[in-house]
């Protein structure tokens, strides 16, 4: 239960940051939006997005990690996975 709540919270925060950084009108973007094709992000927009996500969630997102992300769902899964690892390590 706690895990799905965390997942929902991460998802909402990622979508909110993406909406703000990419200046998307009409509410948060869809989770399966492609960063480049659907949201029109260029390489500098992606840098801006990942910097904002680092500020939002702490830590750093490596170049290797960002290369594997094509949709917002990929971003949410990366951050959720990382938060899960962090929670497990602290137990």
């Amino acid at each position, binding site marked *: 239960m706690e895990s799905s709540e965390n997942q929902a919270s991460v998802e909402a925060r990622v979508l909110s940051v993406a909406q*703000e*950084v*990419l*200046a998307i*009108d009409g509410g948060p973007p869809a989770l399966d939006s492609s960063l480049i094709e659907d949201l029109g992000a260029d390489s500098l*927009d992606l*840098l*801006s997005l990942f*910097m*904002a996500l*680092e*500020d939002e969630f702490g830590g*750093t997102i490596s170049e290797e990690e960002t290369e594997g992300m094509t949709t917002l769902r990929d971003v949410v899964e990366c951050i959720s996975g990382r938060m899960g690892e962090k929670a497990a390590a602290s137990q």
Partner: protein
Amino acid sequence: MSRRVVVTGLGVVSSIGSDAAEFWSNCLAGKSPVAPIPEHWHAYADYHSCIWAALDPIDPARFGLTRVEMSQNDPASLIAGYAARQALSNAGLEPVLVNKRANSYELAGVDPHRVGVYMGTGIGGANSFLDNYSVQMLSVQKGKLAELYASQHEDSEVHRSLGPILECLHHGRRFNPFTVSMLMPNAISAHIGLKFSIKGPNVTHCVACASGTVSIGHAFHAVRDGIVDFAISGGSEYLDDHYGGIFHGFDIAKALVRNCGDPDRANRPFDVDRSGFLFSQGGAGILLLEDLDTALGRGAPILAEVVGYSETFDAHSVMSIAPDGLQIERMMRLALHDAAMSHTDIDYINAHGTGTQANDLVESEVIERVFGRDVLVNSTKSLIGHTIGASGAIEALVTVMSLDAQTTHACKNLEEPLMDLNFARETVSRPMQAALTQSFAFGGHNAGLVLKRFA
């Protein structure tokens, strides 16, 4: 082509106000926000001076900035952009949003190719350079020290010693991928050009304390010569870093005010007891210059006319003013010549007036030689301290407002003048038709602007 050039908009970010009306009102009230330097700077060095004039933190909501802009621009660019926005708005050129993601605007009804940006700065994005250099230098090594600290028993000598050291080794969370475009001095003028989609000349003058004056002077000539119809001109500076190293640089050169025991009276340009300049955290000043016919054609508010500019170089010392003041004198006479004016036409001088022993003496002597003792003289640095690359622009703004209001602010803390000149000892209202504002800079640069009440 030689056209008349007028000032139609003003913008400012300063320690006594971040809009022109508030700033001017505080100038006339003699406000001077002297405060102790940040306490943690004392962990890194001993200083002769211990006061400064601090800015309010940048408020992204008030400045209209996105989180992306806040994270990818040096504060010197951000405050310049806000000052430019003010100047455009009060000149009646309300920017229109054209790109929400970039948060960029266009000037409705204005050909962007006929607008130029002429900005000055002394140290550009030094704040961003130092912030990111701290990450480069410390992040790995501090991590190793932190591991050692954690491995030691808390009663151990190593643990007790390392704790305070680790606290002092500050660095940001990451090396910003935009570091280069934040630290380059031309980022300030580029930021304004990008923000308002301006496509004419876009240049940065790095002339230390004369940067703002030089930029406005070159903008004046560009409008006068028909290169552009509008010029966003001025200066911006942000002189802060976590470790106080920028402050230390000026302090160790013995340029800063000493008698800090009485902070409110320490900063005293042109007084016999002056001891150096009050260090400012920074600021920005913008004058929107415009071809007179264009301004009249669109019914713009005209605040003053720019009529003359000149610049000279001492070739004497990189750090100190030439004692004979001959190149300052030549600069003044060339500025008068450029304005087709005589020294008797100048009613008011907004002096460089830093409060250092050498500057104020040489400047006073040259003023007396060229203008005599009747011209009214004050120093805006007596209120807000020295904003280096922004100072000339902020002082030009004060000169415009003084001509417009026919009133000058007082030269604060001037109790015993070093010479018998007509210093403004209190807020003075008197008829003023023309004024000179001038700046002298490390390196040996001298620059001056002649402004006239618009009629």
